[in-house]
């Protein structure tokens, strides 16, 4: 297997069970993941989808590992025309308890050469993981204001 393109680590003051729920339950993901609900029955090989508020599906793939509350892995790729040269890459989450904290390691591997998913996820994951950490520790996800991504006109 090729080496992962990205490895992200964050330490979250929570329990593995709570973090697991936050990673797999659509009601949770909607709160910290730019309003995205993850949809899957989480059986090996089942479909995995990112569903938006209007019901549209932006990204889809398959469940590869589901071993609560330790390891979760799924593939996904954005379905829009922009990403037509991309292939589903594998995101793997590992949860390790360390006292009061849980170390969450996310590796992402298997992107298409020259594709557009890699630059997109490398911006997306740090924001999503920060927001997830904030939600679990303070009860509030980070609100990412529009002004944060658009210059003032």
């Amino acid at each position: 297997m090729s080496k992962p393109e990205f490895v992200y680590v964050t330490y979250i003051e929570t329990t593995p069970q709570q973090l697991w729920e936050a990673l797999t339950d659509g009601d949770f993901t909607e709160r910290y993941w730019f309003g995205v609900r993850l949809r899957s029955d989480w059986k090996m090989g089942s479909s995995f989808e990112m569903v938006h508020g209007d019901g549209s599906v932006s990204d889809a793939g398959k469940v590869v590992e589901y071993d609560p509350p330790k390891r979760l892995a799924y593939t996904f790729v954005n379905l829009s025309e922009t990403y037509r040269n991309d292939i589903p890459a594998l995101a793997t989450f590992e949860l390790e308890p360390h006292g009061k904290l849980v170390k969450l390691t996310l590796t992402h591997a298997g992107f298409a050469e020259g594709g557009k998913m890699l630059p997109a996820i490398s911006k997306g994951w740090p924001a999503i993981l920060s927001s997830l950490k904030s939600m679990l520790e303070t009860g509030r996800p980070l609100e990412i204001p529009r002004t944060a991504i658009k210059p003032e006109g």
Partner: protein
Amino acid sequence: MDEVFKALADASRRSLLDRLHARNGQTLNDLCDGLAMTRQAVTKHLAILEQANLVTTIRHGREKLHYLNPVPIHQIGERWIKKFERGKLAALGELKRQLEQRDE
């Protein structure tokens, strides 16, 4: 967060982060290559970066690979910048970019 700032307050360590930013997932040998630093010094700096969670390592076969971990830096941005000034900074960043492009 103290550790993050301490780790960033050193030009050699920032240059190691730059190298990982340019190419993620490098071995110690890759990182030492072409640097005017001893292997020992690089190892020490990497340990400090890892302690601050700015660099993370994984085993890949027989190799230990180093990755830039942008999550703590993102959190600094959220904590001190985004709340107040991000919009203005984004505008200034854009202006700087356009001016620099014009220079080229």
